[in-house]
């Protein structure tokens, strides 16, 4: 296959600046996103904000699953915990919004610390089963405790401060928080902490053999991942204006997993792309009809058969196939 020498070209043995040809494309994309509210109608701003929330949630899951190798099957637990925390603080206290914003991730982080403490003692599927079980526990609690969480009805409406009550306000908050969070997570992935996390993913026994406290490291990463999922939950409250137990449900966790599979877990930005595609698809198909789970199932089948490495992973593979010296972008 011949490919044109473009942004993605690199010579064997020469270190390319980055998977997407340096910082300029992202700066350009950022500028476009910044000015979109000037031209887009409210409904599309709402949709875009939904994409930002889902993107952050998906990247937070990939941090622990793709980079940490831990089979987190219940990421929605922390997403929902962050959302509920924000909703409760907003409806039951008069605290200002700058308290609400950290309350969500903090709650999710503490929940991740407590559940993770048990989970990291287990391996692979057993780890996954325990996250799922504990997650369902939290889901059942939120769905039954009418006096505190509103039970099945959830909490709605949630009063938001003036600057966030318009779609434009929600859009900007979601955009800024999502970009800042992705920047932090990217730095984490590329830091010694992140490199060590990936080493543990590849080989926990060997990692312990070079002096790494595997469980402590995994627990830290688990909490970080939960924290950012909780932050996404707060953004959901701002964008949607309500919470209900479906935020915590395992089908929500499965949806996030499919975003990862769709975009590809081997790349940092892949899950965000997967999130965007899935959110757009749900809109096109009439927003969560009864057929939505069926659609998710079909997507999963197609991915498993034709694109096991996800869309972004597939593209990168095609773009670097001429260059055996390239390694998979982490």
């Amino acid at each position, binding site marked *: 296959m011949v490919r044109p020498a473009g942004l993605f070209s690199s010579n064997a*043995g020469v*270190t390319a600046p980055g998977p997407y040809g340096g910082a300029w494309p992202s700066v350009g994309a950022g500028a476009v996103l910044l000015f979109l509210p000037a031209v887009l109608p409210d409904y599309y701003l709402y949709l875009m904000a939904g994409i930002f929330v889902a993107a952050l949630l998906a990247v937070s899951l990939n941090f622990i699953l793709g980079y940490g190798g831990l089979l987190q099957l219940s990421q929605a637990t922390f997403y929902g915990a962050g959302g509920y925390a924000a909703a409760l603080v907003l409806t039951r206290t008069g605290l200002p919004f700058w308290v609400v914003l950290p309350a969500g991730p903090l709650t999710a982080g503490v929940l991740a610390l407590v559940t993770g403490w048990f989970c990291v003692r287990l391996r692979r599927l057993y780890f996954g089963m325990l996250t799922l079980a504990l997650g369902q526990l939290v889901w059942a609690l939120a769905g039954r405790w009418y006096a505190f969480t509103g039970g099945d009805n959830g909490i709605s409406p949630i009063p938001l401060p003036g600057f966030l009550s318009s779609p434009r306000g929600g859009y900007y908050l979601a955009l800024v928080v999502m970009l800042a969070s992705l920047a932090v997570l990217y*730095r*984490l992935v*590329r*830091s*010694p*902490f992140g*490199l*060590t996390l*990936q*080493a543990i*993913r*590849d*080989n926990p*026994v*060997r*990692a*312990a*053999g*070079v*002096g*790494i*406290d*595997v469980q402590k*490291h995994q627990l*830290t990463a688990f909490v970080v991942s939960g924290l950012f999922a909780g932050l996404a939950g707060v953004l959901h409250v701002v964008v949607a204006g309500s919470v209900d137990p479906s935020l915590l449900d395992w089908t929500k966790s499965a949806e996030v997993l499919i975003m990862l599979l769709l975009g590809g877990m081997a790349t940092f930005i892949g899950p965000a792309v997967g999130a965007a595609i899935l959110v757009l698809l749900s809109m096109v198909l009439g927003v969560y009809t009864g057929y939505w789970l069926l659609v998710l199932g079909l997507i999963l089948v197609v991915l498993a058969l034709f694109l096991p490495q996800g869309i972004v992973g597939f593209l990168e593979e095609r773009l670097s196939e001429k260059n055996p*010296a390239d*390694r*998979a972008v*982490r």
Partner: protein
Amino acid sequence: MLRVEGITRSFSGFRALAGVGFDAERGRVTAVIGPNGAGKTTLFNVLTGHLKPDGGRILFQNNNIAGAKPHQVFRLGVARSFQLTNVFNRLTVLENVQVALLSRAGRSGSLSRGSLSECAARARELLDRVGLDGWAGQNAGRLSYGDQKLLEIGMALAGRPELLLLDEPTAGMSPEETAATAGLIRRLPGEGVTVLFTEHDMDLVFGLADKIVVLNQGLCIAQGPPDEVRAIAAVQKAYLGVEA
């Protein structure tokens, strides 16, 4: 340097180690030999904390390290390579060594990219020492089997170990790779590293070791300088017949 006393370890009734005891002296190369199933790998796993012993003591520099966790043992200055290759497949060769260096420096949790570049030079030095300097940017999983074993030694050396345990370091290597590895092991005592290794290649064992420990059925049945052990081994003809 290392004194092992009466180490026992059973697996559901099977006594893999039945009270092993021996010494390894500082600045020497000690080989552990014995037929398959003699307990060599179990012994190594116990020494580095990957398995807990049922009983006995492991004195490393006069501290009992029996039952300590692997990462603690590594930080005390005992590093190892594994019999089956054990590298971080999806990281580059350089990153494999960097991870070990960061861990040794207590900076595994660091968030600064600076600590990565700081240890890059030292990582390249170690790769140079094990002869992998040309492969720094390659994914470790793509290396040949022999090169992965060399990388493992490089990662072990990143811990600046005082005691290095090598579990069949040359198994599966080509003759050239074996010779290079033997040269590397021979140089280590001069660099302050005490070596304990297992090996099936008897030429290599008798060519490298200052001392040989013979295991059989979970017990140490002989230990001493190569010539002495060869003499003892000659008495146990049946056993040597299998090994040599």
